[in-house]
């Protein structure tokens, strides 16, 4: 029994390594794709183009402007009139426009109430608002107001409030989902396409063993991909903290990948060729990823969607992984995530297993 099991696993691994397109796709997804997600998606202001109209003749206005520096802002650009500035914003050359009115300096120095006019291109809403917050802080700082209240914040788990590590990690988890589903479905559907399916059915081997061995071989491939992605990108490039147990993460991943392979089995049972596998995987995976909290925090979703999200095993996987990486949660306290992944995932794998088992 075990000999046959390893024969099948070995054969699938050889077949995988020989098809260089597939190897390329897996390596690409686990490295470049994760890197792009981590470095490309930006919520904090970066390289914001600032334009200004200064009718005061310098002084205070220049003081404020010098505080707007790289990497958040590009060097501020001067405009002669408010019309020119508005046009520049309209033409997407400038994102933030500041207008220093003629009496701005005089009122400031005189200790009178004054006003700074700001024009914002709010298309990229979160960037615009964070930029406004920056400006407010600068002005507040410059006015030297002595507030009686002070905020003493203490950033937990992600001390630099760096969202790169977080984005890279969730992207990796999404890619694990996608590749597991597609790879597992493809190994079965390729047998259908090549016509070897019938030959396999005629072997004096328990079909359950064949299904198990074939899906296990793909789990191995994805697990290797996870190690590569963690080593080179998540830890290597983004220096993501690892506050918990690495082993715990790998075990959780193993359970999750096996569960997700069940979706692949389901798709393989329905699809006729590799093309259909691609179409079906997208239809099935989109809601699963969407409901997992990978893109939007679950507490910010519509209550109904929040309820549905309990059915996505990716939800438990992402929450569990975050806990391990950032919070350093210990083995004993990870049980809700292990339970979620194995319970929801177990049902999924069983369903896929039964569905494809009927074809045997």
């Amino acid at each position, binding site marked *: 029994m075990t*000999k*046959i099991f390893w*024969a*099948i696993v070995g*054969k699938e691994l*050889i*077949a995988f390594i*020989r*098809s260089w397109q597939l190897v390329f796709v897996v390596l690409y997804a686990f490295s470049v794709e994760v890197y792009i997600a981590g470095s490309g998606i930006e919520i904090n202001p970066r390289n914001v183009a600032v334009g200004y109209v200064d009718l005061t003749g310098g002084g205070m206005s220049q003081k404020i402007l010098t505080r707007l520096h790289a990497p958040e802002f590009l060097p501020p650009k001067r405009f002669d009139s408010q019309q020119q500035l508005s046009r520049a914003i309209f033409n997407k050359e400038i994102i933030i426009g500041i207008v220093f009115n003629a009496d701005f300096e005089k009122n400031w120095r005189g200790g009178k109430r004054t006003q700074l006019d700001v024009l914002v291109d709010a298309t990229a809403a979160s960037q615009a608002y964070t930029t406004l917050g920056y400006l407010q802080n600068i002005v507040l700082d410059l006015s030297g107001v002595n507030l009686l209240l002070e905020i003493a914040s203490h950033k937990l788990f992600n001390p630099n409030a760096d969202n790169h590590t977080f984005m890279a990690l969730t992207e990796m988890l999404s890619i694990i989902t996608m590749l597991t589903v597609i790879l597992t479905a493809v190994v079965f559907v390729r047998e259908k396409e*090549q*016509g*070897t*399916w*019938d*030959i*396999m*059915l*005629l*072997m*004096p*081997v*328990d079909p359950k063993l064949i299904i198990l061995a074939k899906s296990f071989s793909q789990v191995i491939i994805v697990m290797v991909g996870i190690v590569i992605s963690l080593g080179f990108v998540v830890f290597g490039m983004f220096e993501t903290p690892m506050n918990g147990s690495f082993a715990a993460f790998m075990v959780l991943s193993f359970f999750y990948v096996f569960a997700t392979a069940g979706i692949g089995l389901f798709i393989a049972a329905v699809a006729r060729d590799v093309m259909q596998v691609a179409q079906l995987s997208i239809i099935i995976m989109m809601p699963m990823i969407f409901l997992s909290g990978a893109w939007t925090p679950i507490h910010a979703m519509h209550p109904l969607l929040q309820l549905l999200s309990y059915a996505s095993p990716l939800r438990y996987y992402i929450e569990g992984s975050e806990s391990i990486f950032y919070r350093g949660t210990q083995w004993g306290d990870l049980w809700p995530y292990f339970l979620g992944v194995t319970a929801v995932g177990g049902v999924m794998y069983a369903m896929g297993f039964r569905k494809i088992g009927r074809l045997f």
Partner: protein
Amino acid sequence: MGTLKIDRVTVRHKEKVSIKNVSFEAEKGEIIGFIGADGAGKSSLMHAIAGVIAFEGEVRFDQHAYRSPKEAEGVKSLISLMPQGIGLVLYDLLTVDEHLRFFADIRNVPQDEAYHTYKTRLLKMAGLEKFREFRAGNLSGGMMQKLSLICSLLHRPKLLILDEPTTGVDPMSRIELWEILDQIRREEGTIALVSTAYMEEAARMDRVLLFDEGEIIAQGSAKELIESVREMTYLRTPEAPEGTITTLERSYSLLPLSAEHAEPTLESLFFVNALRTNRAPPPVEITRRDSEENGNPVLMEAYSLTKMFGPFVANDRIDLQLKRGEIVGLLGANGAGKTTFIKMLLGLHSIDGGELKLFGRAIRNTDDRQALKASIGYVSQHFALYNDMTIRENLLYFAAMRQIPIDTALKRISRYASELGFSNYLDSVPTELPLGINQRFSLAAALLHEPAVLFLDEPTSGVDAIARSQFWELLSALKEKWGIAILITTHYMSEAEFCDRVVLLREGGKVADDTVANLYALHPDARTFEDIFREYYR
């Protein structure tokens, strides 16, 4: 409308030259047959003439001369090419009518009165009038090919290029295809270039070109070609000096043999050519198997086996017996239920009625089968092999799945490799190999566990004459030395004669089950087995 002149055409695929400096001419209304082994360059030449691939040399058709696909643009309205492969130009989800409309539209055929009469006639000739609302995906292979042919005739081409239009098509549909072709060329004066693997068809053409390694090595009418090898053809003789090829029917030798001469056929050309070019295949030898089988001589009994697909009856109460040391041929048109029947015997389709006994044991559920899988070998229609592994790896994998100890497996693989003649290819990937080699290696895979019964589903389709005759010798050697029982389906009527018993299916039912000799006795007028086949399909 005039003639076709091919002038020193060469076709290269990267480094490989598939056609070398070929020239020939064809007159209006002529049907020219292309015959030759796999990879002899027939398809390449056809594609070059159709102006769809780059070539060197010149093709002159009618008033146009062209040397590249671009220059051929002008004559494309006069040409029609039907590429190799059943239903390749059809769309599964379109109906017959929609196909005709589509092909008329892309060919810019005005849909006037004349077109409609012509279309109705084509449909009638193809016997498709009743199927106009059917989707192509639901048609049988033979119907698909007839539909492809009439679709390529809609714009009344003057040059028709058909690449193996009849491969894998049953004899009845083949006859109908030829009738359409014959009528069209007489009425329209169309030149037809047709490649074929069926020598009975080649014999009917006006002129036959024999291709070998990219060159035309012989041409003329079928009669002339057959005469040219008369001297080298002998009755089958056991004496086999160096330089003799012996098949199940005849022996061939360039040097005189003491045996009597036999009536040659077009197939004989291939064997004589192999002798001339020193490519004679080694004689077939099979050693006895490791394990000896004894016991019940009846290996399989089927009583009124029935298979339904929805309301459609695919197999209607078929009785069949298979005994040790017997080759039974399962014949029938496309869609007559041959493959369905074999798959039902194998357990790939569920049984909807009747009773099946394998090795004396009634088969009721999958557990009954599991134990018997070790005694059954199967070669499927398209030689299902893993294309990302070498032949050796494929065989080792199959052996592992069958739990054959590794040393036994290695011994058997090397023995089969030399006996079935694929030792040189053990480290190649199946996609790189000719069909004939893949066929033998699929057979080896099916024999690894030394089964008592072998099911073969169209193992010879698309394989060239020499490889086919070798395959049959292998089968008959297996039968004698191993006492194996073989159930085989084929579209080559000439192969029926090598079977001990022939079972004929028609529309899901069994219409004949007898020895070849008895069938000939029942039909005294029949000259070939194809005639007998036609009797049952009348």
